[in-house]
């Protein structure tokens, strides 16, 4: 079983992101379970949502306490909520930011992590450009597809088109493509730096 936890704020499409991820996994023939942690649903309040992916039916209903991957939609949560709780050193971290892990003050924290599994993507900027609203969720899922290889970009795009009306979907697809390309480039750069 592969478990993804997404942190963000009310209005950023955190719950929708896990739903999209579950639809993308379903389209690849996997079993998937997406569910939010329900709180007072206020714009701007911290929100967390979960997605489990497996090759067999998923019965477990507890929150994801030990995620394999974390997607952080809002970096202002880093020092407010225990977003990294339960994440193992071989886990994936994807943060919506134009800054680096070091610039976010996470340099010490990520020591011991597998660097190729950590990445950042300016998803809000990409969403503003392509969707016209600060909804980074679809772009982040495409970034997650790039960094983890656990889901294909095509499935993420198909899920976006299934979930949203055409116009909104196409904006999100453009943001997703851009985010995917950004992360692929970021990974290649890191690989070149390592090799060099």
């Amino acid at each position: 079983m592969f478990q993804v936890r997404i942190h963000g704020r009310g209005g950023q499409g955190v719950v929708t992101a896990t739903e999209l991820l579950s639809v993308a996994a379903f389209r690849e023939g996997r079993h998937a379970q997406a569910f939010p942690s329900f709180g007072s649903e206020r714009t701007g309040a911290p929100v967390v949502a979960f997605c489990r992916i497996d090759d067999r039916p998923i019965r477990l209903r507890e929150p994801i306490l030990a995620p394999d991957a974390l997607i952080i939609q809002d970096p202002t949560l880093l020092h407010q909520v225990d977003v990294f709780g339960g994440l193992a050193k071989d886990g994936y971290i994807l943060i919506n930011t134009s800054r680096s892990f070091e610039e976010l003050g996470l340099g010490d924290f990520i020591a011991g992590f597998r660097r190729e599994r950590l990445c950042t993507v300016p998803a809000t900027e990409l969403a503003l450009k392509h969707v016209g609203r600060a909804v980074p969720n679809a772009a982040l899922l495409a970034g997650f597809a790039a960094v983890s290889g656990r889901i294909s970009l095509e499935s993420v795009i198909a899920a976006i088109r299934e979930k949203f009306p055409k116009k909104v979907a196409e904006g999100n697809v453009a943001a997703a493509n851009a985010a995917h390309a950004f992360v692929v480039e970021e990974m290649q750069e890191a690989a070149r730096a390592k090799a060099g």
Partner: protein
Amino acid sequence: MLKQVEGSAAVAEAVALCRPEVICAYPISPQTHIVEALGRMVSGGQLAPCEFINVESEFAAMSVAIGASAAGARSYTATASQGLLFMAEAVYNAAGLGLPIVMTVANRAIGAPINIWNDHTDALSQRDCGWIQLFAEDNQEALDLHIQAFRLGEELSLPVMVCMDGFILTHAYERVDLPTQAQVDAFLPTYEPRQVLDPADPVSIGAMVGPEAFMEVRCLAHAKQRQALELIPAWADEFRSIFGRDSGGLTHTYRLDDAETVVVALGSVLGTIKDTVDEMRERGEKVGVLGITCFRPWPSAAVRAALSQAKRIVVIEKSLAVGMGGIVSNNVSASFAGSPDLVHTVIAGLGGRAITRRSLQKVFEEAIAGRLDGLTFLDLDHAMVERVLTREREQRRTGPIAEAILRDIGVVAAKIG
């Protein structure tokens, strides 16, 4: 057809396939997505002929359902929590009048303190109202139970509540197999009411009944519920033959052969319990599971048979009979031939507290080791409770309890578990 959808959407599609003629509802979380989806189907013309009636309260919702059902229409509504309590008087009337309304209860806690999260207090508060009560383990079963509920209710002229865990199921996206219209039509015949308000053939429904006949009417309601105990397993078999899967029935058992410790529960927590039991079985612990799908009528014979070899029983329940203990465990004890001392009540998940494998495993191991009390609150902060009790012993004007506890623990921002 396999689909990855929200539980509420799956239930709405299943209800629509049952061809309801009147849907009335008042929105309340976590039920709202179901009736919103049905409302869109009616206004969009996909669900026709069907009238969707907006009402001003839950009391009105059940009253409209009663009127519609008495006029011979297949009637559906949904509610949760305070909404169920607000309609309680009409809920009893629907059962007493023998009107086969189907209602989804998206299980949620009851205030005060106000709490929108899941537990079973709402549905269990209505356990003696005369409705059949079915509990879904996952979203597939939730949608399947609605199809079975219409047939069961209409055959017996009894209303049926389909209970599904609020948020945990209603808001979860998971894979479901949505049946075809032909399959549902093959299973669910056209509604032939035993009583109907028809101007061409007038009758009174709802007469006052005095001491000379009230007991008999009540006894007949009991007799009908006991008939459901025969019909439910038979129709689960028929359902399997048409839809190709096991859904419904009175109870589900899991790894019960040779089990010395049997865990009993209702609803979606059964999934987490089964995963916990698998882990314990790998270590050689003889643990099994009895899931109660049909809570009313209480399937006493099936429960008795399932527990016949048990050396100890742990009932995990998301409700509390305040001043007494467990509700489900009380029913279980009545159907267990062994000593009631062997039945442990574990109150868990009240007001949406997460029920984890780790906590379940600990409590099952304590039961096996003979260290589990008769009544346990899972993952309770005992110090917090003790602090309030101490304060109340020491001072008179201690103020409201819930607010004092919130002050003690501070603000919990987006706690993960």
